[in-house]
């Protein structure tokens, strides 16, 4: 009897479980329509917005009325399968092209919007984009001849008015003072396809032209931007770029469709579906499972895993981001140049790059990289020389070594924590005893910039130089810069003078010389331990062709897929 009762109970329990599961599923099914519409309209608005432009396209819509006469033709033409790729990033950005400072957002927007001029693939040259040519009118004014016949995704024509509107757009934005790298200026429309832009302060700015290729230089459609407002620009877009936004869901997928009318021809990839996962291990798993064609920010230790897969491979490139460890130079020990030099001789970044970063990094001599304007080719990275480091410490009056506190920022770059820990071990060989303090990147502000009496003697930081110019890279150590006044306290009048002279020097050769001298000065004075240039590592499916850019931009137009 008892056995029967238990069986009956088990049956009952399983029925109950089944019922509960069914019940659990049922409300989901009914809830779906209630939740979907609340999200859907938001997403659909942007994609529908361009449809409002249909009136301008009406002549095309009339074509179908003629089409039926042609349609009955017996043989259906085989339509080629659209080429779709799936892309996995570390975070899902918004679509606002100008008012932001995020790398991933810039990545996405560069596929949708365009600038007057752009960086070449290797990042060293300025090439035409929406401007076909340009000339320097005077020390602080540029004249641009615009590309004719270009249209926005909505069908609106691109003219000088759009340039003026775009340049004035961030002038009026609240957060204007933040955007120091923008081409601030006054835009004058000369004709439909000619504009001049005058530097806001009427100063000569050697990198003024490069600023037009940056985030601030994106050209938006005035009518669209006014129509959707700042809010709408975050979730919808109307650019002239090779891709238009088909669907946008920040919490799900961003779907980009090829702009078939693009002035540079139709992109090889018809559709790009972008999603985001923060966890690197999941991004790698998605790649290995064949779910995606492209995964961003692959950790160096996962490189062999991907390389051993039949489905995918690694594409990596040196970038314009340099890691270094600035000293607080008014602290008792760090103020001594010999100690700072000793740290450079004992840091052995050669080995750290090889073993901690799996070779995915480049040794640097100081803040400048070979591809930057003003790089001094005569400087060689500090060699690993422990004896020399010890001798320098003795000369500095510290024969028994020194003790220093170091802040290592973590969570910004691949293996940053491990790099810091390895550095501690390397420096110890020369008697430099480092106490390491790991600080999450999010908490960097209070520790590094808002602390007038910091405990640390040095800290880790990375600096991306989008303009690849000494003026933007070495600014970090100018005595009046934010970083010098708030943290390093570095004050070298000779270096300041070189940097100031270069900032207003329009003669390229003279300016190059000035930066080379400034570079040599930093190299010798060691206001930091010069560490390495970061490599960007992508996981890519074997069918996808791409060339990674040192500017860290991901350009879908340059990609294609093997048949």
């Amino acid at each position, binding site marked *: 009897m*008892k056995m029967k*009762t*238990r069986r*009956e*109970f*088990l049956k*009952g*329990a*399983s029925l*109950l*479980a089944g019922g*509960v*599961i069914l019940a*659990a*599923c049922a409300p*989901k*099914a009914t809830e*779906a329509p209630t*939740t*979907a519409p*609340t*999200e859907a309209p938001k997403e659909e608005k942007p994609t529908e917005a361009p449809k409002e432009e249909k009136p301008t396209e009406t002549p095309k819509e009339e074509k179908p009325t003629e089409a039926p006469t042609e349609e009955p033709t017996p043989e259906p033409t085989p339509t080629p399968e659209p080429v779709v790729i799936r892309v996995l990033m570390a*975070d*899902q950005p918004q679509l*606002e092209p100008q*008012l932001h*400072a995020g790398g991933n957002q810039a990545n996405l927007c560069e596929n949708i919007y365009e600038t007057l001029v752009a960086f070449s693939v290797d990042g060293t040259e300025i090439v035409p984009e929406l401007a076909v040519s340009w000339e320097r009118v005077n020390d602080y004014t540029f004249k641009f001849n615009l590309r004719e016949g270009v249209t926005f995704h909505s069908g609106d024509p691109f003219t000088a008015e759009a340039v003026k509107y775009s340049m004035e757009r961030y002038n009026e934005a609240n*957060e204007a*003072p*933040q955007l120091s790298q923008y081409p601030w200026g006054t835009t004058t429309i000369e004709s439909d396809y000619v504009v001049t832009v005058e530097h806001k302060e009427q100063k000569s700015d050697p990198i003024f032209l490069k600023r037009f290729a940056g985030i601030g230089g994106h050209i938006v459609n005035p009518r669209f931007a006014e129509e959707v407002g*700042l*809010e709408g620009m*975050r979730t919808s877009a109307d650019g002239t770029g090779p891709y238009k936004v088909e669907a946008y869901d*920040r*919490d*799900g997928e961003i779907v980009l469709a090829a702009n078939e009318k693009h002035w540079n021809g139709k992109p090889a990839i018809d559709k790009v579906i972008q*999603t*985001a*996962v*923060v*966890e690197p*291990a*999941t991004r790698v*798993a*998605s790649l*290995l*499972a064949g*779910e995606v064609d492209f995964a961003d920010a692959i950790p160096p230790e996962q490189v062999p895993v991907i390389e051993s897969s039949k489905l995918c491979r690694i594409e990596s490139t040196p970038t314009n981001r340099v890691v270094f460890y600035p000293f607080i130079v008014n602290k008792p020990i760090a103020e001594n140049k010999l100690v700072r030099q000793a740290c450079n001789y004992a840091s052995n970044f050669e080995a750290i790059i090889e073993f901690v970063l799996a070779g995915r990094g480049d040794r640097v001599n100081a803040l400048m990289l070979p591809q930057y304007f003003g790089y001094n080719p005569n400087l060689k990275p500090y060699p690993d020389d422990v004896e020399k480091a010890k001798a320098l410490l003795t000369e500095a009056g510290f024969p028994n070594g020194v003790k220093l506190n170091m802040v290592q920022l973590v*969570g910004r770059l691949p293996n940053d924590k491990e790099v810091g820990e390895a550095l501690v071990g390397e420096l110890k060989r020369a008697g430099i005893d480092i106490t390491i303090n790991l600080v*999450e*990147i*999010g*908490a960097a*502000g*209070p520790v590094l*910039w*808002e602390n007038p009496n910091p405990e640390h003697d040095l800290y880790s930081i990375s600096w991306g130089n989008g303009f690849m110019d000494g003026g933007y890279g070495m600014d970090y150590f100018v005595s009046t*810069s*934010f*970083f010098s006044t708030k943290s390093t306290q570095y004050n070298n009048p000779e270096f300041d003078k070189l940097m100031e002279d270069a900032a207003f020097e329009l003669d390229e050769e003279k300016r190059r010389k000035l930066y080379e001298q400034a570079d040599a000065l930093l190299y010798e004075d060691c206001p930091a331990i010069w560490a390495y240039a970061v490599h960007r590592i992508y996981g890519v499916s074997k069918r996808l062709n791409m060339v990674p850019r040192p500017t860290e931009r991901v350009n879908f137009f340059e990609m294609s897929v093997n048949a």
Partner: protein
Amino acid sequence: MTQYIIKRLLQAVVVIIGVLFFTFALLQLTGDPARATLPLDADPEAVEQMRQKLRLDEPIPVQFYYYILNVLKGDFGDSLTYKHQPAREIVFERLPATIQLALSAWITIIVTSLIIGMIAAIRRGSIIDNISMVFAMFGQCLPSFWLGLMLILLFAVTLKVLPTSGRQGWDLRYLILPTLTISAPSIAVMTRIVRSGMLEVLNKDYILTARSKGLNGRVIFFRHALKNVAIPLVTLYSLQLGGLLSGSMITETIFGWPGVGLLSVNAIGTRDFPIVSAVVFYVATGFVLINLFVDILYTYLDPRVRLQGKEVS
């Protein structure tokens, strides 16, 4: 009874004010919010303007007053990452995903732990009991980041039957792995609690009496035993729901599940304080409300609570 509910309501209000104070204090401790709002190389002038805008030049009590006033209006300020967008709006956008995962995990926890726990209790000492207890122990021991990644490797990379990550509305395939990951530890805990609770009740005198009266086993089990075990279980299951609704930072991060947990991780990383304080406030308030609901529900489930109230009055 009414007095009891009023008392619980007042307690809830005190807790929420405490949470507000705690969030405000944390904001003060994490450095200059004006600096946090602006980029590193912003002009001192811009910083000063921002300080005035955020009322940081006022005394701390005045700042707290304005903070509470704004929170009551649902205004936590604009997100620093998503410019010009109120933090509240962003948190609300992420809530459906977290609620979906929480409910899915909650149902999984209840169904699984009840079934396994009850079977283990009925068949105490049997192989089923032993196996289920070993699994319960495993569930408790395995860290969710490890379990999540292992599930991805097994079901998505090797077997290719489920997707690795993401959320596609109500496509259940995307829900399975995060649900398993998030519910595993709770299933383990609850199975053990159901089993021990059931065993305790099954050994009570009134069950023996019922058995001696010759009552049907099913009647004894469902009418007399389960009803009495249900009282503590309701509390525990509800608390589980509260925890799940706060969003699992680890599970959501691993599976790229666009919920409140993932939002918090990103917001902490970018020092997006308006979002962090909005998340803390809504999660804490949700937790307090669920607790309040459970306390009130308790008075209906357990007559002793009601009677106690009467005696006091």
